[in-house]
């Protein structure tokens, strides 16, 4: 995984140089101020960021999609973007998830009330129950997002579908030109596997080993201004 990110970093460097070089060289096409963003999906059937239909010309919404047939209990990744593009947030109708840079697509089971009450009268669901869905934008425009099931008793979910969503937004203030490439680099990623050890409440060495995130590459398409 580390190798992959290094590789992508070098690629990015190459693009940036090419781009910069291009703009310095007199060209037949004049520079046109960009009005939006365009994203081309990556190829392949592994983990990938795929454009969602809700995308617009200035806001690209990307779905995290996993390989078909792989069952997982959650995933997370860090995505580095140039400072010339903004990560967007999602407005939802609940106070718990609104304003986050990640949107739950409803595949993973995020809710499960306090098991101390199991066996007694159940407590009605709390609409504000804490969920393992969060993210932020760290220094240097590094997006970090994650979505995880809260209880090991909940079954793992099929990954070959949109597991969560992120968004990238065009910033008219930074002066991008049409055609500028905006390199996106996954710097860290992992999923929680289906097998996290036996379904008991006792911590064991086996559970400790199986409870670690499994690193995976995530293919990212190309983002550019237009």
């Amino acid at each position, binding site marked *: 995984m580390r190798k992959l990110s290094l590789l992508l970093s070098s690629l990015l460097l190459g693009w940036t140089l090419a781009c910069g070089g291009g703009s310095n060289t007199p060209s037949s096409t004049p520079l046109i101020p960009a009005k939006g963003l365009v994203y081309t999906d990556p190829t392949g059937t592994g983990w990938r960021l795929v454009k969602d239909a809700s995308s617009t010309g200035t806001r690209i919404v990307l779905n995290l999609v996993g390989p078909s047939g792989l069952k997982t*209990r959650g995933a997370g990744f*860090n995505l580095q973007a140039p400072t010339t593009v903004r990560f967007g947030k999602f407005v939802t109708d609940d106070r718990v998830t609104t304003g986050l840079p990640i949107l739950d697509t409803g595949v993973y089971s995020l809710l499960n009330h306090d098991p101390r009450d199991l066996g007694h009268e159940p407590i009605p*669901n709390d609409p504000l129950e804490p969920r393992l869905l969060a993210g932020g934008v760290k220094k240097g425009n590094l997006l970090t997002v994650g979505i995880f099931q809260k209880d090991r008793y909940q079954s793992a979910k099929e990954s070959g579908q949109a597991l969560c969503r992120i968004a990238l937004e065009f910033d008219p203030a930074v002066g991008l030109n049409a055609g500028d490439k905006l390199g996106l680099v996954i710097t860290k990623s992992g999923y929680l596997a289906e097998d996290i050890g036996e379904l008991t409440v*006792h911590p064991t060495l086996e559970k*400790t080993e199986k409870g670690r995130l499994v690193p995976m590459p995530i293919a990212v398409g190309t983002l550019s201004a237009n």
Partner: protein
Amino acid sequence: MRRPLPHPVSALVLALALGSGSLVAAPAPQLDRATLAVHRAQQPQRIIQAQAHFASLRAQFGLGEGDAFVARHAFTNPEGEAIVRLEQTHDGHRVWGGQAVAHVLPEGGIRTITTSVRTSVALQGEPQLSGDRALRIALAHLAPKGPMKDAPQVERVVFPAQFLGGLASKLDGTGRPVLDRSMSVTAKLDAPYVWAYEVRTRLHNREDGTKELTYLIDGNTGKILRIQDMVQHLEPAQGSGTGFYRGAVTLNTTLANDGTYLLMDTTRGTRTNQFVSGYQADPSATGWSPDIPALQVWFHQNDSDGNYTWMDGLFQTPVGVTTWGDGLPFTAWGQEGGINGQTVGVDAMSAMTTTWDFYKNIFGRDGMDGQGTAVAANVLNNFASPSWDSRDNASWSTWGQYIDLGAGSYPANPKGFQSMADLDVIAHEMTHGVTNPSQSHYWVNSAGYEEAGLNEAVSDFFAQMVKAYSTRTPGEDSVIPDTDGADWQIGKNVGHGTPLRWLDKPSLDERSVDGWFDGIKYMDGHFSAGPLNRAFYFLANGASSTPGSASYSPYLPGGMTGIGNDAAARIIYKAITEFLVGDGTGTITFQRVREACEQAAWYKGYYSEGTPAVRNAFAAANIGDAHNQTTPRTQVRFADFRHDDYIESTHFSDYSTRQVFPKGETVVPRITVLNNSNTAVTWSLGGPSMFNGADQNISKGGVINADGSWTTPNVMAWHSITATSQADPKQFAEGRVFLIGMDTDMDGEVDALDMAGVSVSWYLWGALNPAHSVFEAPLVDDDDVAFFVDAMKSTWPVK
């Protein structure tokens, strides 16, 4: 509707000063007894008037037919006004923290205080949980090991979301604030009002010690919304008879049926005391009964090793013996009721009667609650456990109207106290009964609220007044003299020469502060009381203009002249009983105390251009500007807590907890400098609330840069940073945060992938890795989930 303040007190003050110009020149005269009696006789009609008046105001507060104001308490003040406290109800249920105060004037008008009116109360449906279920949830949290002192009380209420609890702290053995998870609340709410149950519990047994906790339980989700400790302590946790302190005194005692005497004064108190209601009547021998209203002194029955037996006794002399006590320090363990133990009883009874008479003769107040309820004391508490030490403490029980007094651990413990039954300690505790007279009428006393400092300062101040009163010229019972009886210290005697607190210069205790600052609420109330104690002292005694003098204040370098004990006490008493009526929400700030005192001073004839004493006394404690000050003071404040990148207060929360940050990461606080064009601040680590005994550096963690960006230390704990104005270095603000461990995969980077650790350890019987709990606790639960997500949101918000 988050913080409805339709009629702030400041506006009220202004209205009085401007709208009634003629009154400024001639404040309401003190009425003679006969006129006052006429007004008292009209109190019942005036209560009805007050209720009707608030009913007519409902629309203005967005309230409707289902909303009402029910009178709960009333008295007639020396100016002949009926002061009526009303509780707000919605569909017949109390609105928690909702109340109104009406001053029905003799000439017919009504002045209102509406800061605590909760506006636009609306709820959907009925609560899904029963009161019984709420009770069981509260008891599951309380987890009593022994029997309840008496049956818990459950009341269905409307709970305003703005009063949702938050993180709580307590002081560890070294005096350092640590997170108190058992008193912390992590629930969130997304409606301004919810149905809830208030569950009031009381424990007093060998296994649990003494606890009085009140819970607010969400009526739909069963979540704990707020936990309130109802016991008021003197000192934060660490911990013709002859009295030891009082010497020879005369006492009112009671001749029992069997010829013995009881340390019980039936001449004071007309309503029975709740604390003694749990004890069985003794009709066959003494005739004692809990139904007899009387001041009375009980003792903790210890064994010969000094271990509390969880039995208590009423002091009693043998048949025909009318002398009490031997005047010696207590040593007779196991014989607490004997002549040596009686010495403590004599001290207590003498102090209780002095305090009772002080309030009666000076303010016409009938008992602590103003309704004649008798007060009890229970002395020689020698209970000590690793988590709680009662020996060097004293407390007031709002529910029981009783004082619990420690036996003192001195001289076995050279740093401990002697018997806690001294006059200023008892007057301090009984004053808590004046300011906290009922379960719905009290001031919050926990760290996190400026109001806690008010609570303690008022008790400290009136303890001084009671001491001054106790040295009055015999017969001059209606004036508080300016004698040395008030030494402006608390606990000099119990501390065998070293006071617990100084009112004239609170910082002498090396814990308290002398001036207000943004963030003072994080301090324990006994220490945040400093600025108010100082303001009260200045008001009575004046401030010096000589730097270096104990009564010099850099906030008022020119000094001021005091107005004397009696005038100061009357102003403060009027302010606390008529304008600062407690509603249990903790929202009273020091600025509001100043405004209330200014208003009270006007009544008493001290509010005019010639007597700016109140303004200057508060200004000298950095609470507002001095009289005639033309340029307002510079103020430093942490940014509005509703922004994304702030360091937030625990309370008045906007439904969420945002004062949680990751340890070992860089966060960016934001600061506001008011009233100065030079907004530059100097950043530093730590803050006044983070006192840590000898080692001042433990709490000064991490690295802070000139721009305020702060790389937090790698320690899970409370930490503070301070921003000091460069233009006026006397002005600063402290921001406090709780740092949690979030790097669950221990790769040196906190990110959203770390949530996986929380996920896999959630509710195992022990985390797979200690790093999976943000609290480094054995169990990972929803608190970890909530804190992890909140800290991510507040540290790296998406713009």
